[in-house]
């Protein structure tokens, strides 16, 4: 019975989102469906937070390898939650200066804003910066000329790499105007605009059809594995 209700909700929600771009009267319905989803996601966050706390507390009490990381996670979680919900250090809103908590939790000057700006942002930036090294190691493996396809890939990558830097201009800038298409910077543009765009569009058309097909399977209840299958 509960599975049938879930399937019905899926069908109604899916159909509403499907027709909303075409029926002006359904735009409001689609917004309602989105709001309902957001409410559900917010309620589920309590479960997520509970799961996080439970797992970290279990690790901490077991004192297994790496229990110190669990302690750090727990302290960070609790402090951030307290700072955010308690609006620690929040500057009062000008419309209600007598009410200390009238400002927003993430307004400039609040403790929550400070944590985000001076703890969260540097950590995130550091991890993002590490990507450069991962790109280099992945490129090293991908560009080994093992066969014809890999050799073509290597040659194309070389052209793009040089064409996107000043080295391309220096190396092939001497070519006369009638052969300007062979200059590395122009070759790089041609590869990206013609070959890359064509391949990308082919994949995107396939994805669009795949999404349509998946949507129909889900709305008709043919694929129920996301609900726990037929069990």
């Amino acid at each position: 019975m509960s599975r049938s209700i879930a399937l019905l909700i899926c069908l109604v929600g899916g159909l509403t989102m499907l027709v909303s771009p075409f029926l002006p009267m359904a735009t409001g319905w689609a917004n309602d469906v989105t709001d309902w989803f957001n409410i559900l996601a917010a309620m589920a966050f309590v479960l997520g937070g509970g799961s996080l706390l439970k797992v970290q507390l279990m690790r901490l009490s077991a004192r297994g390898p790496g229990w110190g990381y669990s302690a750090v996670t727990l302290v960070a979680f609790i402090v951030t939650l307290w700072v955010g919900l308690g609006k620690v250090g929040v500057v009062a809103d000008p419309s209600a200066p007598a009410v200390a908590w009238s400002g927003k939790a993430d307004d400039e000057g609040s403790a929550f804003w400070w944590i985000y700006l001076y703890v969260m942002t540097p950590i995130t930036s550091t991890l993002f910066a590490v990507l450069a090294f991962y790109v280099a190691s992945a490129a090293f493996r991908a560009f080994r000329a093992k066969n014809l396809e890999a050799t073509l890939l290597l040659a194309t990558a070389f052209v793009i790499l040089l064409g996107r830097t000043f080295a391309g201009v220096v190396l092939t800038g001497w070519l006369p105007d009638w052969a300007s298409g062979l200059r590395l910077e122009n070759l790089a543009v041609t590869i990206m605009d013609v070959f890359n765009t064509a391949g990308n569009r082919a994949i995107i058309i396939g994805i669009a059809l795949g999404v349509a097909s998946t949507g129909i399977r889900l709305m008709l209840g043919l694929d129920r594995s996301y609900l726990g299958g037929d069990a």
Partner: protein
Amino acid sequence: MVLGADASFLNPDKLLLLVVLAATCACIVASMIAARAGSVPKIRRIAGLEAVEEAVGRATEMGRPILFVPGIQDMDNPMTVAGITVLSRVAGTAAQYDATLDVPVSRSLVMQAARESVQAAALQAGQPDWYDPERIRYITDEQFGYAAYAAGAMARDKPAACFYMGCFFAESLILAENGNAIGAIQIAGTAETAQLPFFVASCDYTLIGEEFFAASAYLSGAPDQLGTLRGQDIAKAVIALALVAGVFMATIRVFSPEQASEPTVEATQ
């Protein structure tokens, strides 16, 4: 909602899109009905999906866990839903082999869906005791916080098989390169075109775009689900024909005498 006198029932700007969508859906539904009636299409072998059993078997033999990452988006993203359907098949195989399956998630709703899915898969495999909800746990909504956890878990637990099925952004390469560094067999699937090259470079198998969405039907083997794939292919063939016809007509127009005498867009600017 009250419609004004000038309000139209259908959005006229999107009428053509509606016709194309209706035709595509009709094609898919008709193929599904035909498959139910006995005309089941033959699906080509998808190496990445054939390797699921091999990857789970390898993890079992080595006594190491399996890591499944269902992307970093919520259940309103079709890629996440497709990832969860693959998860249920991986979980079924892992339950049969009694292998350990770890599923860190970045959205609470995905955690709930993944738990339901894995529990049902364990039941279907006849191993209800194998299911451990604590193995499917919420980490954080934060993109790089989640990537840092997954990379750390790989370094600590050394999973023998890693699955990345869902919606990924910049964290894709962090995950795939860490998996590669520990020598895990890696299978990825996503429809994020910008992340596909990274997965292709770092993983053993990659489900590209529509292959990823076809995974559920392919793994289930159900005739009506396989039928939808044929409908999808018919729609694709029609689109390809329309593209070729469009290119042909545009080329003829460029070389026609009327067009040659008309000023070009660049010349008028």
